[in-house]
């Protein structure tokens, strides 16, 4: 009888895992990472080559914040629609269509998502402040709290949690890769704690790795499946 409950749980877990079976979600995440790196790079250029006029600096900084936020939302929507379109043409004819239940965040609409984004931003600032306080108190080597290292660990935790919840081994492997990439970047060029360059390098490397992982998964999926009309 315990076997029946295990089979039920497995069937339900496989259904949640199905969204990631074709690798498209990883490709999308990789693209978003690369776009994120580009946005941070533009900010870095502005910071290192500021215009002379303080007003111009202020306008450009505000403009960058708006473009970064708007660009992220826009790219996110474009990528999301592209994933859905490719799934309609490639995945669903091969292995079937699934519509997932709406989460409370999705049901809340744009206002809800903005509130969620705001809460996430505040939380990240609080975490950064807490980390800085820890850094001052513990006096670890600078690389431990470099941005690349912190990003590597945070993204690693998210990937590991997702992989563990869905029982997707490659996400857990990518979690380890994320931490390793952050550590290698931090150690290879010991930076000041807020060195943005290493953050950009992390986004580019991790974005490329995620995209490559997604492409490999997609190729494997295409080889193992056929459109339902074919025998």
């Amino acid at each position, binding site marked *: *009888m*315990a076997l*029946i*409950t295990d*089979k*039920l749980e497995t*069937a*339900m877990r*496989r*259904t*949640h895992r*199905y969204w990631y079976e074709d690798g498209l979600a990883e490709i999308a995440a990789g693209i978003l990472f690369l776009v994120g790196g580009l946005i941070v790079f533009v900010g870095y250029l502005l910071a290192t080559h500021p215009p002379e006029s303080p007003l111009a600096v202020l306008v450009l900084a505000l403009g960058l914040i708006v473009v970064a936020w708007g660009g992220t939302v826009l790219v996110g929507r474009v990528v999301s629609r592209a994933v859905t379109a490719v799934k*309609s043409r490639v995945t*669903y*004819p091969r*292995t*079937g*269509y*699934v*519509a*997932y*239940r*709406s989460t409370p965040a999705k049901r809340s609409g744009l206002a809800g998502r903005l509130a969620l984004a705001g809460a996430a931003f505040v939380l990240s600032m609080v975490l950064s402040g807490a980390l800085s306080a820890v850094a001052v108190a513990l006096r670890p080597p600078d690389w431990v709290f470099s941005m690349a290292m912190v990003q590597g660990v945070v993204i690693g935790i998210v990937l590991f949690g997702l992989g563990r919840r869905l029982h997707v081994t490659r996400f857990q492997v990518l979690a380890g890769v994320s931490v390793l990439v952050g550590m290698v970047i931090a150690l290879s060029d010991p930076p000041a704690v807020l060195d943005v360059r290493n953050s950009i390098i992390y986004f580019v490397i991790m974005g490329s790795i995620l995209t490559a992982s997604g492409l490999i998964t997609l190729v494997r999926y295409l080889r193992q499946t056929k459109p*339902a009309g074919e025998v």
Partner: protein
Amino acid sequence: MADDFRSLLDADRVIHEPARLIITAILYSVESADFLYLLRETGLTKGNLSSHLSKLEEAGYVQIEKTFVGKIPRTLCRLTEAGRAAFEDYRARLKRAVDSMPQADEP
């Protein structure tokens, strides 16, 4: 422990059948799924799956909608509220019965 086991005797026979149990478990996790996905996940034949879905539909547990995506037909299945409640009840009974079972080395 005896009561927990006896409660299985009153379990919903429509859902109790293993193939239908897996079908409702899959549909419980999602908003809807199409026939092709259910076919692949359950490993049933087309005829077998159709038969089980019909039984679930007759019981009011599954709603079946035949649509088109472009020119390609798609049969969408979703669990009704009654179907969700029935699955939750069955799952709770099963869990109680399993939890009340002694370990292999216990009397």
